[in-house]
């Protein structure tokens, strides 16, 4: 992997981490809802968002793999 590719990988991983960050926060919200600190329906909304974020994270990881799959780029060797 050359330097340019590594830089790209870093950016992609940073983007992939974003949904994880959101999920963590949503999970905290759900904990609060279960403890009765905030209304229970908030937990339901939060869980929906967690599912959505998990999908998005999975997608970005798949595209990451595609990006680094040898031979898919137009570059000739």
């Amino acid at each position, binding site marked *: 992997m050359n330097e340019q590719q590594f830089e790209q990988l870093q950016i992609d991983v940073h983007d992939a981490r974003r949904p994880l960050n959101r999920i*963590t926060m949503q999970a905290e919200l759900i904990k609060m809802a279960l403890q009765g*600190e905030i209304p229970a329906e908030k937990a339901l909304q939060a869980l929906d968002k967690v599912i959505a974020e998990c999908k998005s994270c999975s997608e970005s990881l798949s595209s990451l793999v595609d990006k680094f799959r040898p031979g898919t780029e137009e570059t000739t060797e």
Partner: protein
Amino acid sequence: MLTVLLVDDDTEFLDVACTIIEFLGHEVLTATNLEEAKDWLQKETFDHILLDFMLPDGSGLHLLESLPDGSPTHVTLITGHPSVKGIIKDLCGPKVDYLVKPIQREDIEQALSQKNKPRTASASKKPAFTKHFGHLIGESACMQELYKLVGRVSKTQANVMLLGESGVGKEVVAAAIHAASECDGPYVATNCGAFSKELIGSELFGHEKGAFTGAVGKKEGVFEQAENGTLFLDEITEMPIDMQPNLLRVLENKVVIRVGGTKTIPVNCRVVSATNRAMEEIAESKVLREDIYFRLAVFPITIPPLRERKEDIPMLAEFFIQQLNDENGTQYQWQSGQLEQLCSYDWPGNVRELRHFVHRAAIMSDPESRELELPKTIESPFAKKQNLSSGLKAGRTIEEVEKELIYATLEKVDGNKTTAAEMLGISTKTLYNRLHAYGDLSDND
């Protein structure tokens, strides 16, 4: 309740984090980029800013620059990248910390509660300072430079001369050099200014029984005591000039002859000497022979005064109070406002004055309380002397300063030119010439 500014370009994160922080009982305002955040800073004062490191219009660090100097706002940088952590740590002062994404509610809670706690609360568990080489405290740039020098010279056998104002900690640096050298011998310290002309020879080189009246037994000198170790000669420039040839001989030949003795005794130690005079002054005032200077100052190290490393004051204050707490079984803790008060003073007496001040404050305070009582103003009886020299501002010519000094001296001795010349260390003729040049000499003078 705190007023918190939350800056992050991820709106969904903002949303959830807001809910959590509001639930924790704080007021939250949000911004999604630097520009918005800067706007908020103009309108509001915040107790705490939670700041994303990477924002669409630049690094979150730029926001720190918009904070007024000495602002009480506490900043927590949030970074998605663990490696950024190290960089931030180096960049930021005591009011800034960081969290690594993904963050949890506990992280936020902890970050926000830090503002209310005195910063030293956590320090009781782990010290808030590192002792470099087992002795030196401070993380400022000039101290880092000093650590580098100490590290380098300790690997060699070179003699070191420490230069620095009174109270900067020359003896502490000497002990640090000894510790870093990992030599087998002991660390022996002596003060060359503390002995009379007659006794300094015996102190340095030892004496044989009956060498002089009162020499009832034989005695090892400090050179012998410090065999394979480090000999610290404090106030080297106060050593009588006629004793210096003897010292030179020891430094050159690495042997001592005890006073009243004939036998040469080989010695092997690193000599660390110290003076509070400036290098130029040493050269000019002839308090130290040139040949001795070059023997002693193979590696000169200048220790910065405390006012040039004010960022180290909280750490030093913390160290001194912990030391006093340990000695006296007290629980004193600094309040952040107090540390700021300490930082705003110039400390003409340097670290020694700071230590004295902390000690005095600890005595003045109620031992049952955790709070230290500080006097409203920090004053030292020696500060006056410093005022005089702080009148020496850069940009004045030597002539101007010289003229002022001459007149100040004349005033002090009621115009007696012979005495004034003596005090100034110049000949009467020179003094007359100067006064003549100032056009201030009437013919009958």
